[in-house]
């Protein structure tokens, strides 16, 4: 029990780290793109909003028959988790960039910054705590959603939970739920701390 508890906990953390890393690597650049392009903003946000409304269990199911990205196992699970984590990261990146004081942006442009310098020296540093808040929210929700990954053979703490449900065994249920809750709390606290450290001004 203890052995598999440690193993499944690590597997769970692995799912989360990979999913959030991909979501951030895609979501932050997408957020920047949306900030620069109003037309894109409308349809891409709509798309991710729709994804967000699909129940997690259904989304995992939808992905299984899709060639290349689908099938049973970790890969499909991670793709579904990335899709869920994308929205909060993308939206917070956009919001963070858009809430930069217009006077600050105007000064930067009037002083002769190129749009790249404006982004790197001014907009991103001022948006960083909002972006991190998005990553934090995405991480915490992914901890929960990742338990469903077990339904399609993705592993993680969901294995205990599904087994607990099937065999009406509270010990197994708790063995899945308690570590998941702990991971969520630790991730929330840790990322919140980094967020405060990096917040400008």
């Amino acid at each position, binding site marked *: 029990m203890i052995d598999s508890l440690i193993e499944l906990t690590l597997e769970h953390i692995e799912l989360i780290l990979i999913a959030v890393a991909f979501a951030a690597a895609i979501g932050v650049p997408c957020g920047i793109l949306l900030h620069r392009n109003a037309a894109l903003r409308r349809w891409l946000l709509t798309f991710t909003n729709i994804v967000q409304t699909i129940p997690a269990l259904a989304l995992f199911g939808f992905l299984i028959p899709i060639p290349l990205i689908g099938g049973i196992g970790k890969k499909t699970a991670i793709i579904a988790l990335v899709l869920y984590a994308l929205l909060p990261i993308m939206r917070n990146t956009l919001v963070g960039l858009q809430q930069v004081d217009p006077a600050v942006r105007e000064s930067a442009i009037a002083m002769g910054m190129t749009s790249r310098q404006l982004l790197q020296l001014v907009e991103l540093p001022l948006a960083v705590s909002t972006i991190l808040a998005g990553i934090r929210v995405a991480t915490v929700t992914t901890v929960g959603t990742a338990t469903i990954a077990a339904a399609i053979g993705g592993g993680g703490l969901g294995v205990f939970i599904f087994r607990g449900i099937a065999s009406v065994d509270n010990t197994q249920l708790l063995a899945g739920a308690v570590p998941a809750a702990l991971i969520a709390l630790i991730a929330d606290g840790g990322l919140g701390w980094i967020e405060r450290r990096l917040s400008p*001004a």
Partner: protein
Amino acid sequence: MTPAVSFSKVHFRIGERSILADISFDLWPGETLVILGRSGSGKTTALKLINALLVPSQGEVLVNGESTRRLDPIRLRRQIGYVIQDVGLFPHFTIARNVGLVPELEGWPLPRTTARVHELLDLVGLQHADFEHRYPRQLSGGQKQRVGIARALAADPPILLLDEPFGALDPVTRFELQNQFLDLTRRLNKTAVFVTHDVQEAMRLASRIAVLHHGRLELLTTPAQFKMQEDGEAAKFIATL
């Protein structure tokens, strides 16, 4: 002599709406032109046409004889200081880095930038040792605007654009900064375009006053002549004195 800034039959429209119509004037090096007008008269728009934040819908704005349509906007802007009412200091940079930003963008060696920052902070009446390591949030409104002016002067641009820079300050601080501005533009021989709706400020600072009304240049004259106006928008401004 080439005018420092020259407007030639400039129109500016947003969609169907005309913001500026048929503006022409020459501004000579060393002059301080004050653009006086009510809110919505188009004065900020006129200012933004000079550093290519906006481009005329029709006509030409020339800076040192070259059209802003053909100049590289980045190069142009680094040779023009810009000061606005909201100051727009970078909240995540120290005062020193704020002031030294254009030199930094221009790739000056650090010791030269640092020396320049010290010189400028002292010039605008802020002891550099006291202020260089602080952040904008630790400064009063008047101090921020002093930093804003130091920042605009950093790379020694020949032209300064100021958009109601002292509008948010208390009258005493405003008076002090106006004096400092007069002293600086004379001593450093800058060409300045200064936008305001404060007629007193216009009379104190201007070598010439341009009155904008509904996007048209109604009058362009010296403060002495301006005071004698008996009708039009100018007279309405004078009546408030």
